[in-house]
């Protein structure tokens, strides 16, 4: 049983590591704090895994646990400016240096703007960016699909406006 759980955890870690890392980066701009948060998320998943009965998809389960951990992290941490990180981007070998610099700026602006969104909007937009469907987002957040739609519209509007300010 313990061996099965351990194998399941290893698989989840391999499969969702990048997504969880992006999630942590959207709550913490300082690299050390981001790693701590990532550790907290992974720990929460490890602890919650024995209780996972398959009543939702594994992806929904992982994002639920991770988002909840991020929320308690933010509440515990209190208010702090959440901009200006130096997370590296994947170098795009197809484009030239200028195009790459522009892409990096755009990605940085997106990260900064997402960090400035209110938590409710940030959650819904992050899940959408990770390609979760509206029913899956509703499952993670424990709200109706209609509510997801409303939040999503507001979140996009807020994000658009923040990105315009950045531009």
């Amino acid at each position, binding site marked *: 049983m313990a061996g099965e759980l351990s194998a399941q*955890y290893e698989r989840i*870690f391999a499969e969702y*590591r*990048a997504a969880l*890392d*992006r999630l942590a*980066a959207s709550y913490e701009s300082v*690299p050390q704090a*981001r*790693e701590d948060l*990532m*550790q907290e998320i*992974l*720990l929460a998943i*490890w*602890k*919650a895994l024995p*209780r996972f009965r398959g009543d939702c998809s594994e992806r929904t*389960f992982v994002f*639920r*646990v991770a*988002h*909840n951990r991020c*929320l*308690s992290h*933010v*509440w*515990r941490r*209190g208010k702090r400016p959440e901009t200006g990180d130096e*997370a*590296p*981007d*994947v170098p*795009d070998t197809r484009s030239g240096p200028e195009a790459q610099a522009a*892409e990096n700026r*755009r*990605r940085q602006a*997106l*990260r900064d703007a997402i960090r400035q969104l*209110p*938590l*409710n*909007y940030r*959650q819904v937009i992050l899940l*959408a*960016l*990770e*390609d979760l469907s509206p029913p899956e987002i509703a*499952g*993670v*957040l*424990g*709200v109706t699909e209609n509510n997801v739609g409303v939040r999503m519209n507001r979140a*996009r509007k807020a*994000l*658009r406006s923040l990105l315009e300010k950045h531009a």
Partner: protein
Amino acid sequence: MNLDQELAEWRQDWLAQEPSAGHFEIRRIVDRQRRRMALSLAWRLLWTLILLAFSVWWVWQRWTLEWIVWAAVIWMSTLVTTAFVIWNSAGTWTSLDQSTAGFVELARRRCLAVLREIRYGRWMVAVSMAIVVPWLTWDFAIRFPSLKALLLGDGLAVGFAGIYLIGFAVWRRRKLKELEELDRFTNL
């Protein structure tokens, strides 16, 4: 630009981020945390048992009304506190709904439980002081009839109570802030 295209572009930028190079040794952390929790629980139990056993031993050695009352007060307050802790923690262990909404509700219940615990703690400090200070004054007046000893005894008791009250105040402030954050999140 249509909305789907806008979201697709954001998504593309979002997914292009590179994961950090952090090294995560979760199993070691889990083991450490489990040991810490077990130690903390064992320490609490041990402390309660020591307190109860010591009071019994003390009364056994000095079978007077004064010490019998003292032991009774210690046993009573320990039992009442244990009952309160059990009652107060009901419904704060796990949430039925694992979603964010369920988690927020659980976090709120935990916050309220802590605030109740703080209120209880303050009352306990007040009741303890109401018993300890007059008793110490009376006891010192009989055993060590000097103003210095009296002030030292009462001063220590009041000092301890003060430390507890300051701790409770800091803890309460933190919890109220957390509750405020939870409300802000729910009302968005």
